[in-house]
């Protein structure tokens, strides 16, 4: 007698331990296997783009902090890059170096958060999460020295930074740079060769390079698929053209590659920061008058390589004190587009792992 079976539809989320915020996935299971999936978002919609139309240009910096709250520095940089393009503002060189330092620190912090949560989703009971957060704490301490805040930094301003780094920042930064490779080695030894991690993530959620490019996926996920594309090299902003670093890529585009690419990116970031510390010139970090800026009529698109991918701001100005329109191209939102194709056919555990490997941040998806 054939057994009568039925597919089961489960709402994963909006309240679920591994949806990184409030994200809902309507998943249809056949036993353990996923046969259909539909992402539903909008639970964290705060109307950032609309709010931006009501704020002056400098005030919008505080809004960008809250987009991807794990990498506020990169968001600040993305916004001010677009704004500087629009207003034609020259940034002092020291400010550019400090910007790169803080953005790369933020990249390490963000990737550490990713690693911790990724392993958490694989089922290590909080251990890796605590280790990664322990390391990240030092970066947050550095941010506190730079700008007085740890998460929502609001550090950058059109035309530069709020203020120069204090004198005790540099020794602390050097200490951190000394220790960080050791931390990464430890994580690598703990995770990279772990057979359980390998068997859980290898050949899971494979994304082919063609598909990834067609879906305009960016960031570590694209690079894990083997596409060597990084805005820091492809379209260098700030002082990246003077820096010497590699773009790590993955072999197959599976979840493991996404993890390993991020891990190697952390090493590259440490390298970049070291070069910045060596080269940083003296001088001012501010441009006069940019605080109360009124860019000329027109539009500009500025983008940076945020930890999660290409973060772009498209700003239309009507000559007033606030933008006419501010469109945000958020990497997390676009990286989720291939979710269904990657997950369907896998097991439930794969679903969680694949979704975790995308490192989606809900604040950015819903904007």
């Amino acid at each position, binding site marked *: 007698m054939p057994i009568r079976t039925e597919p089961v539809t489960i709402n994963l989320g909006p309240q679920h331990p591994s949806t990184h915020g409030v994200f809902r996935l309507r998943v249809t299971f056949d036993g353990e296997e996923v046969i259909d999936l539909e992402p539903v978002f909008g639970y964290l919609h705060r109307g950032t783009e609309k709010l931006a139309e009501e704020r002056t240009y400098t005030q919008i910096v505080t809004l960008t902090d809250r987009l991807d709250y794990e990498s506020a520095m990169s968001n600040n940089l993305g916004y001010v890059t677009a704004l500087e393009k629009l207003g034609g503002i020259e940034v002092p060189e020291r400010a550019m170096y400090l910007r790169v330092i803080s953005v790369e620190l933020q990249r390490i912090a963000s990737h550490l958060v990713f690693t911790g949560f990724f*392993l958490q989703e694989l089922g290590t009971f909080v251990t890796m999460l605590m280790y990664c957060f322990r390391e990240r704490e030092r970066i947050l301490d550095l941010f506190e020295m730079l700008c007085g805040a740890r998460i929502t930094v609001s550090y950058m301003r059109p035309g530069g930074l709020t203020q120069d780094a204090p004198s005790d920042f540099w020794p602390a930064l050097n200490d951190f740079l000394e220790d960080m490779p050791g931390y990464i080695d430890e994580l690598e030894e703990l995770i990279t060769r772990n057979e*359980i991690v390998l068997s859980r993530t290898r050949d899971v959620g494979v994304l082919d390079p063609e598909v990834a490019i067609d879906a305009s996926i960016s960031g570590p996920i694209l690079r894990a698929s083997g596409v060597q594309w990084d805005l820091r090299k492809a379209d260098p902003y700030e002082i990246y053209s003077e820096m010497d670093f590699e773009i790590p890529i993955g072999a197959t585009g599976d979840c493991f590659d996404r993890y390993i690419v991020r891990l190697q990116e952390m090493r590259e970031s440490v390298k970049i920061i070291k070069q910045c510390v060596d080269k940083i010139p003296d001088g001012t970090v501010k441009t006069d008058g940019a605080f109360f800026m009124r860019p000329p009529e027109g539009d500009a698109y500025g983008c940076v390589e945020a930890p999660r991918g290409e973060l772009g701001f498209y700003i239309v100005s009507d000559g007033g004190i606030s933008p006419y329109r501010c469109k945000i191209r958020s990497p997390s939102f676009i990286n989720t587009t291939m979710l269904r194709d990657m997950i369907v056919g896998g*097991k439930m555990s794969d679903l969680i792992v694949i979704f975790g490997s995308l490192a989606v941040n809900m604040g950015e998806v819903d904007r």
Partner: protein
Amino acid sequence: MELGFRNIHAFVSGILPDGLEWIAFSISGIFLALVVINALVGVAALYTWFERRVLGRFQSRLGPNRWGPFGLLQPLADIIKLITKEDISPNSADRIVSTLAPIALLVPAFLVFAIIPFGTNSFLGDLNVGVLFIMGVTGMNTFGIFMGGWGSRNKYAMLGAMRGVAMLVSYEVPMALALAGAVLLAGSLSLSGIVASQTLPFLIVQPLGFLVFIIAASAEMSRAPFDMIEAESELTGGYHTEFSGIKFAIFQLAEFMAPLVTAAILTVVFLGGSRGPDLIPGQVWFILKALAATFLLLWIRATWPRLRVDQIMGFAWKGLFPLALLNIFLIAAEIQFFQSGGIEPIGVSTLLIMSGINWLVTGIAIYILANVLGQPSLQPKKPVPSPLANMYAEAE
């Protein structure tokens, strides 16, 4: 006077008139059960503190430390909190089944302790089929888990329960086979017999059996890396998603009893039970060994991620099952060889020779199995840049 069943029974039947033997029997039984169950609950509560503290240390945090010295009273606070919580169950839940589920999960854990010999003379009952009893009773918790999952009418709980049944049933086989190796060597099914025959701890004599047992047991109690029944990141809570209040407390108690049960069995069967140098009493040896075993389980829990469902099942049948069979075969052959016909226990020197052979075979077997099971796809590949978007070309 030692607190044992016989003593109490003798005392009670002494003051009762003749012919009321059964009353004496019940009174002494209930009295002892009360003592033991309450002691066990106390120990389990203390163990939750131990587990959380050690796990906290592993994760470089502090663990509970607010109430009482070193947070020792934390379990009490937890119990009070859970008991005073409202007991919510979904409207469409199967009330009877979901109420019975926690009990069905907890009782087997208590039952196992009835026959564990904590010392040479301190045990509740010495069943001559102790190992069989253990296998039967620990198999019962499958019911508890499935009842919890089924009764609460929750899809997560149901998924967890289904996983649980599949996994628990498969891992029972290697676990039983691993115990069978010990039984063969000891020539006795009773736990005190097994302890008595361990002139050399069976951990040394049959490492393969120990390995299989500890893996299968950690799957049986659904601990990392086999904790997919309640995989928090996937199923939110697994079979106990819908439980709250006292029922949830009982589930938690059962969950924290599981490592104790496992550690106790492990100590008795593989670590020589209460045997040890006479410096300290056997009971203390037992506790120390059990603590070491729980520490090992904790260590594993703190380090390893979780396996996937199909991998867990595959590991049971493709990995552990052959190893357990090999272990039995090896032990049986060695007994046949060294103990030719005699019934006298095997001497320590012979056991040492046996352990030498066994360690060698264990190493070879694990090496071969690892290479058979280890998929070549897990080897690192060399990344090749895709020609589709070459930024170096574009930047020029």
